[in-house]
């Protein structure tokens, strides 16, 4: 029998373990992907996921039912990741946007050919500051002013870091594209 989302929420509010597990089972895949994007490796992501779910179970009583439950959990996961970043005192020092190299222009041609996990690996390989801002801007959809507020940095810093991240990713995409080109015999 499928448990509804409402039942899961109520059960978790009552502290029922089987429904806590149901919540975990339902959302752990998506949330682990979120955690992976903010982490360097699986171990770090699993630690984040653990912390995130503990927070979800602790604060589920505050969930009023307005809005998407999945979105609420995702925000908790992202906030947990940002909390760790803040604790690590990451250096978001400003990077002059004008120094960013010009981008290659053949990105769009290869979008469908790259596997998700490869894209994920590219993000994971980014330096922590770039990775965070790229995730927040490109994947989560936050604006620069929101990111600046969340991370305690200036909007300019957010923009410059995003530009740098984007540049690195494009370079990586270019290299992958070369590898993907069919061999000429």
């Amino acid at each position: 029998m499928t448990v509804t989302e409402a039942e899961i929420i109520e059960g978790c509010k009552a502290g029922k373990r089987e429904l806590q597990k149901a919540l975990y089972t339902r959302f752990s895949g998506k949330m682990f992907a979120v955690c992976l994007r903010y982490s360097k490796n699986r171990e770090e992501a699993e630690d984040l996921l653990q912390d995130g779910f503990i927070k979800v179970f602790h604060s589920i009583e505050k969930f009023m039912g307005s809005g998407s439950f999945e979105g609420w959990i995702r925000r908790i996961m992202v906030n947990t990741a940002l909390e760790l970043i803040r604790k690590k005192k990451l250096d978001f020092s400003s990077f002059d946007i004008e120094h960013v190299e010009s981008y290659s222009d053949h990105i769009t041609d290869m979008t469908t050919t790259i596997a998700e996990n490869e894209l994920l690996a590219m993000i994971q390989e980014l330096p922590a500051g770039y990775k965070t801002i790229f995730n927040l801007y490109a994947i989560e959809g936050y604006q620069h002013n929101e990111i600046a507020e969340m991370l305690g940095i200036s909007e300019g810093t957010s923009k410059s870091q995003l530009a740098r991240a984007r540049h690195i990713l494009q370079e990586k995409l270019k290299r992958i594209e070369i590898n993907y080109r069919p061999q000429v015999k």
Partner: protein
Amino acid sequence: MIEENKHNNTEKLFHNALANMEVQPSPALWDKVEARLDDENRKRPALWIWLVGSLLFITGAVAIGWYFYPRNQALREYFVNSGVALAQGNVAISNNTVNTLSDSAKISLQQQDDSINNTATEQAKPITSQTIVQKSSATSTPNKSSANNNAHITTVTHNALVVPKNTSTTYTSLKNTPVKKDSVTHITAINKTQTPVTTVANNKTIKPVAANEPVIAKPKSIATKNNTDTIYKDKQATLSNTTVKSTSPPVKALVTKSINTDSIANAQKVVSLAKKNDSIQVANKVIANNAQKKADSLKADSAQIAKKDSAKKDTVKKVTTSTDTSHHAALPSLFNIAIYYSPEIARNDVTSHSTTFNMQNAVPNLRYSFGAKFSLSFGKFELNAGIAYSQLHQTFGLDTISFSKNILQPLIINTSLGNLAVPVGPLMAGVSPAPWVVTIHDHYQYNETVNYINMPINARLNFGIGKFTPYVTAGINLQYAISENAVLDVIKDKGVDLNLTYSSLNVNAFNIGFSAGAGIEYNIVKRLSAYVEPNARLNTLPLSGNDKSLNYYFGCQGGIKLGL
């Protein structure tokens, strides 16, 4: 515009691919989450439970102190001087009719002479007239302060006329008065016109007192304690209604707050019974002889007493207690409160597996406590119970770490709180390209903190009461860890500084410790003193679940103590 589209394309590529991506974590991860949930469910009771518990504890301590607090200054003084002298508290009893020692009738509280024959049986004791005997009903442990050892005053008033009807002789202040072992006191009413009287003491002696004869009070106690005409001393004497058991071995007559006609009548009955007892009369003779012998040797003392008596000719309406505390140290209060600070030091055992590092600036576990404790003071003996906040702190620094280039496992540092794992990522961050053996010159600064609530319960034995009071103490300490935290600050030589916080440190929340110490207390002013107390403590459990070492501390407690 083209550039913007390119940007958007890149971001769109990643967004489309990753926004709804699903990756399954390892199956064991739920077990870890569940374990943490279980751990937190049975974790610490809420703070309010601690607050309520502490409040109840303090309230209980105050209530106990209040209940046992002696309302009588003489008693309090007795507590202080119980090991020094007996006759600090005096009771003067007189009456309009039964007044001074040199007048027609006297009530005297005589302390039993040391030479009293302790083996005399109750049966041999006569019950005679004109004698008010205060005796201890305690048998062999008279120094206990429990209610079971209440002493009684036995009153035998042969000549009822000497105690007029409605004469009020108040003993209120004597209730629960503690006495020293073997200190038996006689209260003897003497009428000049009567035949020689005999005083009966509990298990001790038969002491005749002849009419017109100077009262044979215990010279030693009188001479040394500056007592008035009446000396009172006995073990927790309880004075209550005059009921006399003349035939039973313990002659139990209880003196009430007022000696009324009923008590006199009872006493007369007792006397009449006593007179029928031939053995008593025989004993009287023997004792009379002994008393006569003693009388000579005690003449000087008696004269001294008489001198004092003359100074106290004035009629005293009721029993009074007098206390002279000027010649000894300030009287400690029965109930005290102390606040203290106690730094402690423990071992240091920071080690690491599989990685070499040079540890610098490491310090042992340091702990300090702030607390308040309440004490019940019984002179030499004190009982302390308190509540304290403690913080344990340890820190060390690492300046050089060497490990294999291909390190895959986190750097594990074993601390007394548990294993601290530094992930490979932060460890390697900024190190590129790496040689086969990596030596990092980053500075790792580690700080760990555990916060505790403690409930120390100690017994204390004082060696004398004075300006300086040395003592020894021992007891238990109940300890509860309310929070723990460990932070590793990595100040990197290259790359970004890191700050890693470890929250699951497996600290043993509950712990019971045994402590012992010796200290000295300095009496600053009345009711205010300061003390310093070096001590040692051994906890029954290690600091954390990962720690196998003995959990011991050496400390020094200093505090201010206030008598209430």
